[in-house]
């Protein structure tokens, strides 16, 4: 029989967002318990493993060779006709960075949380929520198959794309079809890729998403695809499109797949509400993934730090109310919301472009030395060469 537990702050899910929340809640004096349904933190990996790097300092993560596999110089965006333009650190600073070992990265963040004083329970899943009046006061859980209860002053849902905590708490986390991608990735070996770049292939090769190549050392690469649910007609669309793309690219077709990774990714506008009495949600569970890039680690960690600080404060003051959690609700919006919304609009626009338009946009950027990769500069380059295409972008202006 597992004993029921009591804590100040309960974090459900030990991904990056959960570990950051746990770490900062513990650092700020709260008694913290983080539960993870898997038997190993970070494994199996469910991620393309590309990550920007400019935000790491802000949340106190020190880059380490333990989890950095490759440091890239930039990204290349390929049109359907496979012309490309390059985004490098100079032109787009914050969007380029590392290809990481996500299992090692997640473990490091969990170690940081533990070192800050958080307790961690593995093979422990939340099976329901505990409420007192209207307020969330913990979860029903199962550890090694045995049911028990965890009572907490503050409960954090950091339980990823398939998040339950937010839904149990009645938070509006449901997504529209156009705001979700179905994703599949092969980790391949013996492929011909350029470790200086993360590559992205746009257009009808991946309707409403893109094909990505995130290179890793020693001839390995993560080759994956996201396809927008609203554009899917047949089952297994992600696999069908990815296999087709690989078959058409000899440098990848000759490779061997050593791992298959699937998953859902939200490409949604910011949620209206991420807090309720006794509960906050963070990271992928709060749909904080960047809707344009599909990247979720940075936003999850940035919000996690804030979430942990506010959770500790609320637990210690005995005020785990929705009103008190406004410090988190407003704080993460101040840091992330504008960009999330802008990139969601950009995603909506990109999803509507034809291959012919993609080709013209990328062609127009050939040979143009963009000082800074801004929407304005891109539009100017396109207008100079293909004035008729610019009309499609007027909404951006």
């Amino acid at each position, binding site marked *: 029989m597992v004993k029921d537990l009591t804590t100040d702050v309960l974090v459900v899910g030990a991904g990056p967002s959960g570990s950051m929340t746990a770490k900062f809640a513990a650092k700020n004096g709260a008694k913290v318990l983080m539960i993870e*349904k*898997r038997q190993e933190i970070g494994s199996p990996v*469910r991620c393309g493993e590309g990550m920007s790097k400019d935000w790491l300092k802000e949340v106190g993560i020190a880059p380490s060779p333990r989890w950095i596999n490759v440091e890239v110089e930039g990204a290349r965006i390929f049109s359907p006709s496979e012309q490309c333009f390059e985004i490098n650190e100079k032109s787009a600073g914050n969007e380029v960075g590392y290809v990481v070992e996500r299992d090692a990265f997640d473990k490091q963040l969990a170690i940081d949380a533990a070192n800050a004083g958080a307790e961690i329970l593995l093979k422990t*899943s939340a099976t329901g929520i505990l409420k007192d009046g209207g307020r969330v006061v913990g979860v029903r859980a199962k550890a090694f198959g045995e049911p028990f209860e965890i009572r907490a002053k503050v409960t954090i849902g950091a339980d*990823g*794309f*398939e*998040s*339950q905590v937010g*839904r149990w708490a009645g938070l509006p986390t*449901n*997504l529209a*079809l156009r705001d*979700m991608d*179905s*994703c*599949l990735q092969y980790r391949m070996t013996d492929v011909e890729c350029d470790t200086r770049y993360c590559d992205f292939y746009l257009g009808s090769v991946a309707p409403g998403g893109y094909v990505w190549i995130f290179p890793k050392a020693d001839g390995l690469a993560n080759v994956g695809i996201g396809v927008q*649910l609203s554009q*899917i007609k047949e*089952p*297994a*669309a*992600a*696999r069908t499109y990815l296999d087709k793309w690989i078959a058409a690219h000899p440098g990848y077709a000759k490779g061997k797949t050593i791992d*298959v*990774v*699937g*998953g*859902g990714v*939200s490409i949604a506008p910011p949620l209206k509400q991420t807090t309720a009495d006794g509960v906050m949600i963070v990271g992928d569970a709060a749909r904080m993934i960047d809707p344009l890039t599909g990247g979720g680690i940075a936003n999850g960690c940035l919000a996690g730090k804030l979430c942990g600080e506010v959770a500790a404060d609320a637990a210690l003051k005995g005020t785990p109310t929705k009103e008190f959690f406004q410090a988190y609700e407003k704080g993460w919006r101040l840091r992330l919301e504008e960009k999330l919304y802008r990139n969601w609009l950009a995603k909506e626009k990109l999803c509507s472009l034809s291959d012919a338009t993609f080709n013209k946009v990328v062609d127009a950027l050939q040979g143009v030395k963009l000082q800074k990769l801004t929407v304005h500069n891109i539009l100017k380059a396109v207008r100079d060469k293909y004035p008729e295409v610019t009309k499609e972008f007027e909404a951006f202006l």
Partner: protein
Amino acid sequence: MAGKKSLHIESSGQLCVYCGACVGVCPLNCIFLDETRITFDERICTRCEICVKACPVGAIEID
């Protein structure tokens, strides 16, 4: 159940990669992932087929 199509989730591992995409997209939260087993609540499911679209490997069928 009368009038409802039949939904089948292949989660024995032949197709399913246990990624949880179906769980995350279900608007009624009636699909459950238990590490190596996926189940759904027959009574709640409306056969909206969003999970069929979301499954990257085609492990969910409706007929």
